[in-house]
């Protein structure tokens, strides 16, 4: 089976030359949740943004391919790319407040998508928007449709955004730290919802997160990043096992757990970071 | 306050202003002739590069035969005095009230803010003309008018910036650190508001120059015999078809002064911000 998303040797660099993503390859199959894990500066957000074609001005892709069902997104004409985004590739953003337009009602923002991408009439779109809100387990969908974003709680807004993301039945969803802004009990509900929706629709999900706990609970496969390089890639069981690479294991040991006493916590040893930084430097010397 | 680094905007803007200031200070020495001296034989004499020019009247003469260059030089004095004195006084009044409103909150804030609202609902130029008409013409009246009208500009900006700063946790940290209220205002809040105030000051000075020009244009500034840029424009307007230069040169100078101030303000904005400065 061909993967839905196939990234090969992706290189992302600052316009001034420094590399941010160093020849990263990964693939996401249909129905699979692929975790993209790393600390800040590891390059996970850059990869997600490169897939969506929304890199900041000062940053560009300098190498590799990003194939979505065979088509290289990096080389598509802008018009074709625009027709894919939203319809075939959707985003669940990090901040549920800025992800919605504060000046427009939920109904307008939901039906826009359905009418624009799927060519539905106003009436059809409203019916479908209601159905979608029910699917993301919103209790009074009629009422929510007539609200403005600031009138909803954070968890509710994220549900709306998930409904919008799934509305056009996309093949790929990029979820960019979708629960960092939420309370932990709400986070669990949202994670559950994303998995349920993803399983029901057979969607491939690229799940960006810094939290190994979330990875363990929602991902099938994982790519661990450090300084824009792949440190480790594999099935979730391998990553969580004792056979994981030193960095992944060190990251696990540095993650506090409520079920373990304080002395089980060990900060990531400096040499682990240093070795990976040295590898990044060697890459830069070989690829100026 | 930390040392600001120079950038080209500061150099160019500040340099131009420095030259203007030196000209104003040394006006009696620099002016080739007495700006008030009339010579009807030289009436509407063109500047030096045109035919019929007189080398002693480099920028030509006005309808009364007065030397345009000398008048321009002397007129820099009232312009810059108004800019500096009115600018600084406006800054002091507006900033003080803005800090007070933003930091104290409560009734004080309500009273000051409503005052600002009422104040800004009057058209400023008309208010200025009314004020000057009320307290009489002269440089001091122009300054008073500008201060009384434009303090709201500082007050608004400083108040909202102060409010934003008081939301910051370093204010709480200062309370925990035992700093008194007044000390927090002056040592923690003010340094963070000051760069904005300084940038605003350059803007206010350029506005003051324009207001002075407008008031002298309508004859409400200094007495009509001493030269002002606005007054020169007013006189030049009547002979615009025969002698464009009488009006063009003071306009050019106002333009240069305002541009220089804005450039300086822009430069200071980046220079005074420790984050942008990097």
């Amino acid at each position, binding site marked *: 089976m061909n993967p839905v998303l196939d990234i090969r040797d992706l290189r992302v660099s600052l316009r001034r030359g420094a590399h941010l993503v160093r020849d990263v390859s990964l693939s996401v199959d249909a129905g699979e949740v692929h975790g993209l894990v790393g600390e800040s500066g590891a390059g996970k957000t850059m990869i997600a943004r490169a897939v969506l074609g929304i890199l900041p001005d000062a940053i560009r892709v300098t190498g590799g391919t990003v194939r979505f069902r065979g088509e290289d997104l990096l080389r598509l004409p802008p018009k074709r790319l625009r027709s894919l985004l939203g319809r075939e590739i959707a985003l669940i953003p990090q901040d549920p407040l800025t992800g919605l337009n504060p000046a427009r009602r939920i109904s307008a923002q939901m039906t826009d998508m359905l009418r624009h991408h799927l060519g539905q009439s106003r009436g059809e779109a409203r019916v479908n928007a209601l159905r979608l809100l029910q699917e993301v387990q919103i209790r009074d969908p009629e009422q929510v449709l007539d609200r403005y974003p600031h009138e909803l709680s954070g968890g509710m807004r994220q549900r709306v955004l998930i409904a919008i993301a799934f509305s056009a039945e996309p093949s790929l969803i990029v979820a960019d730290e979708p629960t960092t802004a939420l309370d932990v009990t709400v986070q*669990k509900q949202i994670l559950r919802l994303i998995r349920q929706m993803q399983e029901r629709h057979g969607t491939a999900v690229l799940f960006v997160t810094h939290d190994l706990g979330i990875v363990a609970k929602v991902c099938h496969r994982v790519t661990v990043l450090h300084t824009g390089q792949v440190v480790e890639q594999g099935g979730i069981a391998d990553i969580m096992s004792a056979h994981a690479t030193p960095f992944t294991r060190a990251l696990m040991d540095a993650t*506090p757990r409520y079920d373990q*006493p304080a002395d089980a916590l060990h900060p990531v040893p400096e040499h682990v*970071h240093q070795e990976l930084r040295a590898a990044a430097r060697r890459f830069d010397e070989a690829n100026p | 306050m930390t040392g600001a680094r120079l950038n080209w905007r500061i150099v160019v803007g500040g340099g131009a202003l420095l030259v203007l200031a030196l000209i104003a200070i040394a006006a009696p020495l620099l002016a080739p002739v007495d700006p008030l001296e009339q010579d009807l034989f030289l009436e509407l004499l063109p500047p030096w590069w045109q035919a019929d020019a007189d080398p002693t009247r480099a920028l030509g003469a006005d309808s009364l035969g007065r030397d345009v260059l000398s008048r321009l030089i002397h007129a820099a004095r009232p312009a810059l005095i108004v800019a500096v004195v009115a600018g600084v006084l406006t800054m002091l009044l507006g900033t003080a009230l803005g800090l007070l409103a933003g930091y104290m909150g409560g009734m004080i804030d309500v009273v000051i803010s409503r005052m600002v609202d009422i104040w800004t609902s009057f058209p400023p130029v008309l208010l200025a003309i009314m004020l000057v008409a009320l307290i009489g013409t002269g440089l001091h009246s122009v300054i008073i008018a500008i201060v009384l009208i434009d303090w709201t500009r500082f007050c608004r900006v400083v108040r909202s910036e102060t409010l934003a700063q008081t939301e910051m946790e*370093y204010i709480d940290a200062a309370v925990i*650190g*035992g700093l008194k*209220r007044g000390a927090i205002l002056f040592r923690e809040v003010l340094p963070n508001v000051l760069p904005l105030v300084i940038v605003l000051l350059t803007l206010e000075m350029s506005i003051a120059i324009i207001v002075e020009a407008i008031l002298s244009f309508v004859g409400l500034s200094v007495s009509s015999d001493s030269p002002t840029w606005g007054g020169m424009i007013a006189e030049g307007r009547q002979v615009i078809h025969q002698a464009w230069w009488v009006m063009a040169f003071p306009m050019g100078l106002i333009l240069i002064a305002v541009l220089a101030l804005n450039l300086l303000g822009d430069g200071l904005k980046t220079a005074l911000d420790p984050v942008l400065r990097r």
Partner: protein
Amino acid sequence: MSPPLLQVRDLTLSLPDRSRGGMFSKPPMVDILRGISLDLRAGHSLGIVGESGSGKTSLGRAIVRLYQPTSGQILFDGADITTLDEAAMRAHRRNMQMIFQDPQSSLNPRRRIGEIVAQPVLTLGLEQDRRAALKRADLALDRAGLGHAFARRYPHELSGGQRQRVGIARAIATEPRLIVADEIVSGLDVSTQAQILALLNDLKRDMGLSLVFISHDLSVVRVLADRVMVMLGGRVVEEGNTADVFQGPRNAYTRQLIDAVPLPVIDPDWLDSQPGTEGTRMVDIKGQTVLVTGTSRGIGKVFVDALLATGAAKVYAASRKGDGAHDDGRVVPVKLDVTSAADIAAAAGTCADTTVLINNAGINFNTKLLDTDQTDAAAAEMTTNYFGTLNMCRAFAPVIEGNGGGAIVNMASILARVNLPLMGSLCASKAAVYSMTQGIRAELATRGVAVFAVLPGAVDTDMTKDFPPPKAAPADIVAEVLAGMKAGEADIYPGDMAKGVSGGLAADRPAVIAEMAGYV
């Protein structure tokens, strides 16, 4: 034992809700904290966890007097600092410092690191001159693992982790005894976070610091806190030894909170699991049909009114004489002696729509255990308090289950957990009730009946007029029982006395027993 370094007593805080209220009308006040009490001993650390809106941050700020409490008391080292003005407060500030959540906004961008750290040293009078203060700042920066070379830098030149070390250096520069740390690692990467936690642990040990550690992250709290307090809606729902609370939470909300933390462990069932389906559940009185025993006087009588006020659909007011007539039409008097098997069987028939059973009936004779002439009294206490309650549970558990589930509430006493010399037999019967309640809870775990044990301290009723104070008002006890049921607390400890004893037993059992021995 020396008094706790920090004591908070019944603290409430109301703040104006700035999002509402018009231009001229005052914004309405919202209750942020509703009656918080806590003790923190020197050298210990207390974790405060909760979600957004729980009031945890406000509590931290109220402790260091960044917020002025509406009522209640804060005692620092025995001194009441609740209403000190800022000048008087300054004398205490060097001993209680704070580390802030956002190292970006808590460091003045226009001041050098050295000045920032030296500021409190100077203003709080540890050093009189600037140079000495800066020297102390260098020392603090070294101690915070940053190095004094950073003193000349500006905050924006530092990384997030380094900035948080500056925040720590500033807090320890005055060598305080208490530090309130508010979400200090929430914005940091895991590897930086682990370093900061390790640093704080070292400082706590080396400097003998007491720590109030506020976080939404239970795992982070486990690293630093000996004891933990779980907050919800401005109240404390559970408090105890950190390891105990996280391993065996008593409160349903705590359980839900713990369950929601994704541990880095593969568990395919986690996403679909729902906490709180076993054991105690949250029970709201609204719309329930409630049977209360012992309603002729004392707490039972108060219960009836409170249940009506809370919206119960029907209240069976049971008493030995059946004299519970009431103005409210929802009250049905029932004649029921809990020591009579026939009465109980009859009640189970006539009150077949009961969904909540409150076993309140009880007697006390206040007798010593070894007084041989008091054997009958001991037996009577056991018959009413223990067997009466047990038989009611046996009769009504199937009734409640048949009505789609509900709750059983057994009124025990704090005496179930500590025995007083002059009333040994009563204490023993209450201990039996408490133990039995836990057993019934386990047996009913999967049958939709929540089981609550209530362990109040002395209550001010005509039955307890021999007891010395402090005694709680019955209405307060009842209100706390209903609130505890709503929050799903398995064991409800109404009143300060009960909470204090319960907390004390967990912290220092012998001390409490010694103290209680002299109570009567």
